[in-house]
């Protein structure tokens, strides 16, 4: 009881959304459209955080996670309710906020540090640690506009992490860095948590939340839906959240998902043995379970599953009909399972999408956005392309007509 460092009581945040007044052809305004509308980004959110706790906040886009962090970091004021905080809060809501592209890495460490609330003496004391953690020592005097995005993230995280806060608030920022650095940050945050620093982590990466946090808050439409153990919270969140309509599919079938003949209730991502996964190693196979529910009988449904990169490049897709599987007709709910070939995607964050065509790819019945997953590999990243398949190589030395006899076969992969 005595070691509570954050106490939020009935926090609520209202935004006013103003509507532009459309006019009829004769110039008179529509009377039924109000000038503005209230939108509650947060509603009645209460919780307590104890010192040294690592708390994860999960929820879909627009659930209020970022608004909650903004309220706790005093960027915006709650409309109702209150929060009490003990100790210095450092929040990293966006990578490199306050970095000026024209300034060098060194100059930006000082600037960013002071924006986050560090004194010049503190920054000077921590400077070497910050630089070595970020692994950018040789680029210290280069303007950050010439940095790669990875270097940028590393430096930004490093500054924030070294300000010795009592409470560290981190929003979905690490997704930008490479996997090795993400792991380094995770380890660092775990160390901070062990040393008594309170951590609040918002992430879509449920795997990260599960490994980092002992406790999870799940938000949905601005309200607190769950407060408890990560495994339970994540389960609930995944089951409870209906998959969003894929925008292009909504354009074809209609915006109102309730009118669709069939919907996908949720998609489970598993490993080949059937246990849930959010991170796959390069070359691993993925087992996908698509839980559907049809409202009307659907003839010859043709399930598909696709994988997209964060920049919306479709990397590959699987279709039941293409793979020679036909289902006669569906009515009611059920599940269909796909076991992919070994994943040859490079390490990155991917999102899935799934839906139902007819056998001839003429009529679309359903198209929704599924869960995200990571592919992990020490070496292969986007610089290697979208996917990577080992090739065959031969070796020869100039001056010899004969090409070396050694021959490497196709790598066996993972």
């Amino acid at each position, binding site marked *: 009881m*005595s070691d509570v460092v954050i106490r939020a009581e009935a926090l609520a945040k209202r935004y006013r959304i103003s509507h532009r007044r459309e006019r009829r052809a004769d110039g008179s305004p529509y009377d039924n459209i109000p000038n503005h509308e209230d939108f509650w980004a947060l509603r009645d959110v209460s919780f307590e955080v104890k010192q040294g706790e690592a708390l994860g906040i999960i929820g879909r886009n627009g659930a209020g996670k970022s608004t909650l962090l903004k309220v706790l970091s*005093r960027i915006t004021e709650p409309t109702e309710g209150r929060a*009490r905080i*003990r100790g210095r809060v450092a*929040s990293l809501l966006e990578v490199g906020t306050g970095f000026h592209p*024209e300034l060098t890495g060194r100059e930006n460490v000082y600037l960013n540090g002071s924006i986050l*609330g560090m004194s010049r003496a503190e920054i000077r004391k921590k400077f070497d640690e910050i630089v070595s953690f970020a692994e950018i020592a040789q680029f210290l005097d280069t303007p950050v506009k010439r940095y790669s995005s990875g270097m940028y993230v590393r430096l930004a995280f490093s500054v924030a992490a070294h300000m010795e806060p009592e409470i560290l608030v981190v929003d979905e920022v690490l997704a930008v860095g490479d996997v090795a650095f993400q792991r380094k940050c995770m380890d660092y945050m775990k160390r901070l948590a062990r040393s008594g620093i309170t951590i609040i982590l918002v992430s879509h990466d449920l795997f990260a939340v599960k490994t980092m946090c002992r406790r999870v808050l799940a938000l949905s439409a601005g309200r607190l839906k769950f407060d408890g153990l990560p495994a339970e919270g994540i389960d609930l969140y995944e089951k409870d959240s209906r998959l969003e309509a894929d925008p292009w599919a909504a354009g074809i079938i209609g915006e109102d998902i309730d009118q669709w003949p069939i919907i996908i209730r949720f998609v489970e991502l598993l490993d080949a043995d059937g246990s849930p996964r959010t991170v796959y190693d390069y070359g691993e196979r993925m087992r996908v379970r698509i839980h559907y529910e049809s409202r009307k009988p659907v003839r010859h449904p043709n399930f598909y599953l696709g994988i997209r990169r964060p920049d919306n490049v479709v990397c590959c897709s699987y279709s039941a009909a293409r793979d020679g599987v036909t289902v006669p007709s569906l009515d009611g709910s059920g599940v269909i399972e796909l076991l992919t070939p070994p994943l040859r995607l490079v390490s990155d964050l991917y999102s899935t999408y799934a839906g139902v065509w007819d056998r001839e790819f003429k009529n679309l019945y359903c198209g929704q956005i599924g869960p995200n997953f990571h592919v992990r590999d020490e070496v292969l990243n986007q610089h290697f392309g979208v996917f990577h398949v080992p090739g065959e190589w031969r070796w020869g030395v100039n001056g010899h007509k004969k090409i070396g006899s050694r021959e490497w076969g196709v790598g066996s992969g993972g």
Partner: protein
Amino acid sequence: MQEQTIIPTKAESERFDLLIEAGRGAKNYWRDLWRYRELFYFLAWRDILVRYKQTAIGVAWALVRPFLTMLVFTFIFSRVAKLPAPGSVPYALLVFAAMLPWQFFSTALSEASNSLIGNSNLISKVYFPRLIVPAGSVITSFVDFLITLGLMAGMMVWYGFLPDWRLLTLPLFMALAFGSAFGAGLWLCALNVRYRDFRYIVPFIVQFGLYLSPVGFSSNIVPEGMRLIYALNPMVGVIDGFRWALLRGQSPLAGYAIIASILVTSVLCLSGIWYFRRTEKTFADII
């Protein structure tokens, strides 16, 4: 869960050092401002560093701009319009003594009023007392002003026209110029967040202000009956004060102009802080 409905006892609320609540926050504001005091310096430092990056002649621009303006003004007002200079003061010094505070005021005002919008990524992602942002802009312009002051000293030596004891009163007029730029800047930057119209209004204010202030001429050519109204422009007192302090009192200084300037500046500053503090909480939501 039950404790949350109980009103915390005094001892308990003291354990927390921060209370976040609608309409709250005033308690910690000035303490925070003190804690973040180095940020004034760092924001100004950033602006100065950035301003002259990738320029060929760098900081020299702080000298070139007012110097060229002074040449043009001296030529137009003294040779073309044939306006008189009081006493034995060279017209160029008369103009430059006014150029100094005016250039500071106009750049400080324009920079300050755009400062919040220019830093919108900071405003929406990090907490710090927002007052630091416009203040930083005024400080940046003040550094330029100090550089130009050096140019003024050089010109006075060149003309062989050195100041007397009145020079000691110069800091007072510098403070007045700083205050009026800061006060007006607070109003304009806060208004600019909500109404971007001010992005177009501010250049007008600066442009007209140049003609409404005695920069190119001495204020004793203003008709007697209008001088009091004229003095409501806080820069009138400041500019007259600069001339009086730098030019051995050969340029007249009216007491009422100083008093009017001090009053208007105080009103601008106090009301500016009040309005800024009142609207500050919504900056992150509407910027």
